[in-house]
């Protein structure tokens, strides 16, 4: 149960970036898993220089914010008006470049960032013993999500993003430079992925391909929850985390299968996803 919660929380964070990028920009970002891996490596480098996990988290988030901005300005921006196939190819290309770049620089070997000292050890939860770090992850993700929620629902930027998701052209007619908002959204989405990469690094191993499964799982999360929906990503992520870890306890080979089966079930019963709005284009 608790493993599922931690895994779910991380999926929520990655999927949140994916879903707000898709919701606001209409771009399916196949580079999201690579951004997550890049965040983990940025954290790793920062950790090796400073020995501080907090520095690693800050580096992962800040570096990925910058990378997100560069990718949006340099590439994604040219693809907003293009068909989805082109967008997928372009973001997929970015993913390959990033992953192979990581492999060239760091080699294919798996590395690790140890859990920070303030979160080392084990907690006795009465029912089970549990690594302290995994509980801290829940808190860190919780705080990040509250921050994202605040940005999206309580600020000017959020108002523009929510309006832009629905009707870009009208927002533009109302005197707002929507493409500049897109830049911020892409940057925030990439930052969420990178940050998730760092905080997941002590739990999994860091390797160039670490984002591949996470990307697929995050897609499933937002399909279950409803594409473009904040609460959909939260609930979808938690459900996916539980399914993956509970099934893995019985038979690891089936955990992904169970996840896809759940997605298929949701799609049959509620095609727009649990929190999706019907008829959004």
């Amino acid at each position: 149960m608790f493993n599922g919660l931690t895994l779910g929380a991380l999926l929520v964070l990655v999927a949140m970036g994916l879903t707000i990028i898709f919701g606001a920009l209409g771009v399916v970002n196949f580079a999201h898993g690579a951004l997550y891996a890049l965040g983990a490596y940025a954290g790793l480098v920062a950790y090796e220089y400073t020995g501080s996990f907090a520095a690693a988290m800050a580096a992962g988030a800040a570096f990925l914010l910058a990378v997100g901005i560069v990718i949006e300005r340099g590439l994604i921006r040219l693809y907003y008006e293009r068909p989805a196939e082109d967008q997928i190819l372009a973001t997929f290309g970015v993913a390959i470049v990033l992953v192979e770049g990581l492999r060239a620089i760091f080699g294919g070997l798996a590395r690790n960032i140890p859990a920070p000292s303030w979160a080392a050890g084990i907690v006795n939860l009465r029912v089970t013993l549990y690594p302290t770090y995994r509980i801290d992850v829940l808190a860190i993700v919780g705080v990040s999500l509250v921050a994202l929620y605040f940005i999206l629902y309580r600020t000017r930027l959020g108002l523009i993003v929510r309006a832009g998701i629905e009707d870009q052209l009208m927002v533009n007619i109302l005197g707002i430079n929507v493409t500049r908002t897109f830049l911020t959204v892409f940057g925030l989405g990439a930052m969420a992925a990178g940050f998730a990469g760092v905080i997941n690094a002590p739990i999994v191993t860091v390797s160039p391909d670490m984002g591949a499964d996470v990307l697929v799982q995050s897609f499933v999360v937002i399909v279950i929850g409803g594409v473009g929906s904040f609460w959909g990503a939260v609930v979808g992520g938690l459900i996916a985390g539980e399914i993956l870890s509970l099934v893995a306890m019985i038979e690891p080979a089936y955990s992904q299968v169970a996840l896809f089966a759940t997605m298929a079930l949701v799609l049959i019963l509620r095609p727009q996803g649990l929190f999706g709005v019907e008829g959004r284009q």
Partner: protein
Amino acid sequence: MSLLEVDAINTYYGEAHALFDVSMRIEPHEVVALLGRNGAGKTTTLKTMMGVMAPKSGAILFNGLPIGGLPPYKIARLGLQFVPEERRIIGGLTVEENLVLAGLSEAKSWEPQRVYDMFPRLGERRRSRGRELSGGEQQMLAIARALVREPQLILLDEPFEGLAPLIVQDLLGVCRRLAEEGRTIVIVEQNVEAALSLAQRCYILNNGHVVYEGTPAELRGDPDFMHRHLGI
């Protein structure tokens, strides 16, 4: 100097030529009706003025400044505001959020309260989401959202379309009030009588060509012409 000067613009949808050398002038403080049958090019003209479409050739000057082909947000910031036929209220935002959104990029924008004083109905509905509003309320909000920006020129595309007669009377009253306040308005309407009752001048488009420019009185004096180009 005219407030808006459209000089021989040609606009296309892909290969399809929609506007042919369209020229018109809008003077400050006047209401101009833009009439014509379905598909005549009225909406395309407004969209080209607002920057939603770029003219392939020709010039558009707003306060003497060339704006043809600029993106809509830049044109909006110069003081033009388009109220589209489909209204395009942001359905997921509340009435108040729609108004706030409209004012974000305009330094001297209205407080929502000023809108509620003018449209008490919108005040009652301030916490309702856009998609929960009736057609008449949405149209009110669409006009209010333009006013919030205190534009120098308002482009109204079929504001009375699909609304019950009583609501049309209400909205007509609103438009009349805006005209009396001295606002500059271009109004496109199938309801020719309503449009002519508001306007000081009118243009008629046919198949993307301007075929008439004059006053409502002159137009009414030529019933044959009206019948031919407006079907009435």
